[in-house]
């Protein structure tokens, strides 16, 4: 019986020849990412250990991105704790450089690695053929101290992609369509593996966007076959693969889906669940108070180009705040060089520093009672972006920007 990509990467990290879905393996982690969401809790627990030590400090990457710059004395204190600990122990540390997953993709992730991140969207790393999975701070602490953890080997769902997305349709529309189809727990405990000739038509930005959102279907991880697009990205960022794994022809999948990219259309996820998806035209006319272009899902240069093209020469609607948040310093600088920031500024957008912003409902852009946000963020749960009685719609960079111009939900072909 052959192995899936997920099984192969776990076997590699466990130092064994074979494994299969349902087995529990002890693995050595290749990398451990943590951000300011919970690192202060990890440090508190670490300091209570009898003989605290770090198994391999080279593997740790700590990133301040959720509340940067800090918005209260409490946050400042938790950042200081993280900053001081990182300096004392020589941990790779980023602050104000960008959203953790974007920083990881630009600087650290390698194909074939098994990575724990103390953040649910760690599954984004599958875009480079790495097994990234989100954990809490206790699991993170255990891995940091021992270098290892245990993993239940997941079953895999296979998504065969065919064809090509049409003009004006984006990766965000594709993954929202898939989540709508399989449901918010349709991939619970499972790996989502993407392959097929349609994959070759997708850019790295598209791929990160797709893998990143798989946790919203409950997935343990997302994985994509490593091809020239992935290898070119890796090379351009000065890194080599750990291992390039491919699923065996006789690998076992609990389900296989064939997805025709040509059939995907602009999609909106309505409040309060990511799988509550409808064609964007069904939300046409819903009044908005704020629009957000950014996050680990859609804050890359490709997304800013899409937004800038839609809004060039136009204005943000009156009484609407349009937040544009590049996902990293590199994205910010590139957007500046290309003149995209000028376009957004001329249109009346608010450009923020690279961070998680309103996607996680703190730091900035939080919405009030009864307000509506359309967002390229990751979630639209009740209260996610602020007041418990507010509303979040999720959509592509194009639909979000078009809605910012119209002051109500609409698609880019109508503004």
């Amino acid at each position, binding site marked *: 019986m052959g192995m899936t990509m997920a099984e192969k990467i776990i076997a590699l990290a466990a130092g064994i020849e074979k494994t299969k879905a349902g087995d529990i393996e002890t693995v050595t982690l290749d990398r451990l990412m943590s951000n300011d*969401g919970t690192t202060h809790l990890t440090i508190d627990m670490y300091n209570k250990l009898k003989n605290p030590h770090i198994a391999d400090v080279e593997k740790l990457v700590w990133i301040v991105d959720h509340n940067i710059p800090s918005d209260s004395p409490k946050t400042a204190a938790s950042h200081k704790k993280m900053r001081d600990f990182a300096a004392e122990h020589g941990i790779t540390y980023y602050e104000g450089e960008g959203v953790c997953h974007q920083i990881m993709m630009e600087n650290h992730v390698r194909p074939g690695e098994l990575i724990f991140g*103390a953040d649910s969207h760690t599954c984004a790393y599958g875009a480079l053929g790495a097994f990234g999975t*989100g954990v809490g701070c206790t699991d993170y602490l255990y891995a940091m101290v021992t270098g290892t953890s245990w993993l239940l080997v997941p079953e895999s769902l296979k998504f065969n992609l065919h064809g090509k997305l049409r003009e004006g349709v984006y990766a965000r529309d594709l993954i929202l369509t898939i989540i709508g189809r399989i449901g*918010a727990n349709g991939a619970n405990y499972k790996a989502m593996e993407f392959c097929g000739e349609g994959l070759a038509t997708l850019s790295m930005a598209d791929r990160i966007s797709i893998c990143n959102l798989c946790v919203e279907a409950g997935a343990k991880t997302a994985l994509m076959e490593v091809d020239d697009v992935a290898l070119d990205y890796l090379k351009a960022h000065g890194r080599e693969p750990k291992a390039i794994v491919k699923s065996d022809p006789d690998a076992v999948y609990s389900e296989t889906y064939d997805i025709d990219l040509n059939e995907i259309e602009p999609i909106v996820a309505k409040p309060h669940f990511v799988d509550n998806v409808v064609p964007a035209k069904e939300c046409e006319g819903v009044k908005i108070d704020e629009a957000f272009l950014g996050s680990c899902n859609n804050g890359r240069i490709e997304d800013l180009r899409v937004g800038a093209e839609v809004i060039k020469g136009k204005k943000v609607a009156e009484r609407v705040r349009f937040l544009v948040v590049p996902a990293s310093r590199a994205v910010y600088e590139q957007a500046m060089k290309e003149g995209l920031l000028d376009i957004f500024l001329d249109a009346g957008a608010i450009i923020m520093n690279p961070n998680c912003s309103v996607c996680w*409902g703190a730091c900035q852009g939080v919405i009030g009672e009864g307000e509506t946000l359309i967002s390229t963020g990751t*979630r639209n749960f009740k209260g996610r972006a602020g007041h418990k009685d507010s509303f979040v719609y999720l959509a592509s960079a194009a639909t979000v920007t078009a809605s910012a111009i119209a002051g109500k939900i609409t698609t880019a072909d109508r503004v």
Partner: protein
Amino acid sequence: MSETFKAKIWKLDDDIDTDIVLPTEYLALKTVEDMKPYAFSPLRPELAAQIKPGDMIVAGKNFGCGSSREQAPEVVKALGVSCIVAQSFARIFFRNAINNGLLLIENPDLHDAVKEGDEALVTPGEKIVVNGKEFPIASLPENLMEILNAGGLVKAMRKRNGLD
């Protein structure tokens, strides 16, 4: 952990996400005790004050979906909830709950068969009895029971290493 206990049921539905269990704005509070009043507040602001130590939560599918914030199972544990029985749990929440010594039980039928306020007799690894009706439940693997019984992963490690 295998001793039978009595628990009053609080009932929630499908897809209780971690932003419901504990909204982002309360994550910055200093201690989990400070966070307690805000548990489940977007959905049922009065619930945290109503839950008494020893009570249990019965929910539908996909309990705990969303963020990896460990404050979510921590705050449920701090409220004194004895266990959560759901049709299914999201995986990060599952690990985080066990790591904090919070008992989780998967059962497909209980949610539709009980109402809020019912009393249950829970025998972990064996069965739940409500209104005279029995619901068999599976036991967790031994390594997870060791963590649960110790009160969480860090405590289990200390115990294993002879520190406690």
